[in-house]
């Protein structure tokens, strides 16, 4: 005999949540709550002006340093572009896809607060990738370089797409009432 599972679940959604968490779980949560109080709204436009000035000054200083001592300032980072013109165009394609998604998403601090788990993944990916690139720059076998770098771009695109889905989901939920 076949059951109509979907109908059963739809009609009894609340009743399917049958298990109760142990009482002592709350203690482990209570100790780790650290709620930052919402700061009063202030005009922070001066912060942006200072940041822009600092950025400009830093960029000029870095440019001067790079011109005066080429190759000494930053560790060598492996890139697909170094391998061949074919891989250069693949890398350019990945970068343009990422830039396109990022420009559509217009990610800001609010998104970071809203979906911290996704930004944590993104930051972790960047840290690992920088380390990888540094290590791979010392490797002479191209095959060893290609896969991790392509993996990095694909993982980054996937995380960005998940952020995109979360934003869409949030927008769709605005008027929804969840059944819990």
């Amino acid at each position, binding site marked *: 005999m*076949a059951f109509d599972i979907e109908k059963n*679940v739809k009609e*009894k959604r609340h009743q399917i949540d049958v298990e*109760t968490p142990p009482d002592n779980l709350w203690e482990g949560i209570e100790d780790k*709550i650290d*709620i930052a*109080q919402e700061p009063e709204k202030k005009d922070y436009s001066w912060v942006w002006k200072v940041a822009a000035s600092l950025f400009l000054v830093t960029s000029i200083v870095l440019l001067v340093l790079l011109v005066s001592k080429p190759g000494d300032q930053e560790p060598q980072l492996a890139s697909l572009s170094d391998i061949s013109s074919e891989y250069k165009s693949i890398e350019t394609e990945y970068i343009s896809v990422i830039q396109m998604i990022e420009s559509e998403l217009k990610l800001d601090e609010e998104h970071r607060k809203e979906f*911290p788990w996704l930004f944590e993944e993104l930051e972790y990916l960047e840290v690992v990738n920088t380390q990888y690139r540094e290590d791979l720059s010392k490797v002479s076998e191209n095959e060893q370089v290609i896969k991790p770098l392509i993996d990095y771009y694909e993982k980054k695109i996937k995380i960005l797409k*998940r952020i995109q889905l979360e934003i869409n989901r949030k927008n769709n939920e605005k008027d929804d009432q969840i059944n819990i």
Partner: protein
Amino acid sequence: MDINHQLVKSLQDGDMSAAKGIYQNYSKAMYNTLIRITGNSEEAQDLLQDAFIKAFNSIQSFRGDSTFGAWLKRIVVNTGLMHLRAKKMEFAEINDALLEQEEENEHTVDIDPALIHEEIKKLPSGSRAVVTLYLLEGYTHKEIAAELDITESTSKTQYMRGKKMLKEQLNEKIYGV
């Protein structure tokens, strides 16, 4: 203003006692979701703690443009999925020909909800996650594909397979066949 809305507002204003009220009102539903995602009570307990800590510590980012339950559920589900992604997921394998025979003669039999919960827990991890997200949490296959890093068509197939296995398990439990 409903009680949960008041609790959230109080917590945002710094009243820490409101956190316990929120936990009491939402923890059971969230715990069950995590059990179905992980298939394991102990892992679900750890993840429940992580998810509530994350939610409380970022409570100021809740702006009320979705319900608090929806916002919290998203954090809970994502905490569960992050855990699942770190492990190797196991997908259901059954004969595709059998899959096509399905959907005939579906009967409207009342099934004990506790039994549905128990049998979902027994599904292989990948199909269990797909069944939980699609059937109980209202995710689309496109969303599931992105979350689990699988294709949309894998999500659909795994849903069908998971559902088929679930029906077989329920048949065995109820009728012994």
